[in-house]
């Protein structure tokens, strides 16, 4: 598998994962607790994806890992706030 194919595969995993989480959010539309759990798992999935992707590409630094954790945390906080209003 060359670099381009590996890159595409990683993005395919990300997009499919995000679509799955979006479907779960819709499916559990009226269960706040499960939606909160789905959002938390989605944020962890995203941060893990970013860190693993960069590790496989030998481009992982503390700053990059922190960036994915920050973005994942931000999205979780936004949805957590909306779910608890």
């Amino acid at each position, binding site marked *: 598998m060359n670099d381009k194919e590996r890159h595409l595969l990683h*993005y395919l995993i*990300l*997009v499919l994962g995000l679509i799955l989480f*979006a479907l779960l959010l819709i499916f559990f539309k009226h269960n706040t607790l499960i939606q909160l759990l789905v959002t938390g798992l989605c944020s962890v999935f995203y941060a893990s994806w970013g860190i693993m992707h960069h590790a496989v590409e030998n481009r992982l630094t503390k700053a*990059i890992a*922190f960036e994915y954790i920050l973005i994942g945390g931000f999205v979780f906080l936004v*949805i957590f706030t*909306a*779910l608890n209003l």
Partner: protein
Amino acid sequence: MPAQFIYHFLPHPHKKERAKLLSHKALSVYCLAVLVLFAFFKIAPRFLPGVLGYASNINTKDLFVYANKERGKAGLNDLKINDSLSKAAQNKAKDMFANGYWAHVSPDGTEPWDFILAQNYDYSRAGENLAKNFNSSKEVVEAWYQSPSHRENLLNKNYTDVGYAVVDGVLDGYETTLVVQFFGTPRNPSYLAAVDTEPTAAQVVKNPVELPSVLNSSLPKASTVPTIDIAFLSRTFAVVFGGYLGLLLLLDIWYSKLKGIPKFTGHTFAHFAFLLLAVFGMWFALAPGKIL
């Protein structure tokens, strides 16, 4: 100075880093801002009760029609409005506002059945569905229908009667509308005599004059317009803030490609896709109210 200012929005070609508004520091500030906003929404209602709330336009007629429509689809009999159950539902809703709780059982241990029995409705079966913070009657019935335990009540073939209450008030500092739905089957079938001539759901729509008095009397009391509508505010926040960050990320992708800036950062496109999920969730997937 203007040349430096532009790098708040665009990646720096020499420093090879993101726009300042997408830096780690900025992202940390955004996280903090969301936490402050959350704290504000939780604390503000204590000092300014009724200012924040949920706009609603719910009425018992529509609840009655939509609920029976769902029963009709399942091949079940229409439920009939029972004045005693409606009065019991009114008392339950008022009790929740008066004692500041949102539960099937009140803090002093009063159960839904106590409200029903207090109206001399002698039941063999009874059930309760609750809803709050919804915008419309249709959303309430849809939410009940999509929840297995509430649907079980809604589509229970053993129930013959139903009573509704739609009451506005301030709960935990938030202006809202509480919906209480009581189901029942009288122990003594003769109890049904008073409601034998009730119109069907379809007749209710066509000829509102024939609605049971309980339904008509509740209609004017079924809408709230708080100073600040939380549902509208959170959706606006999702679009404005999501749009702001999304635009910065798109600018990052475009400008980096245009100037050939090789940044040693995370993938902007991945961040953009993840942000899209958040905006989607805020807009489409988050339920408009809560059921119990």
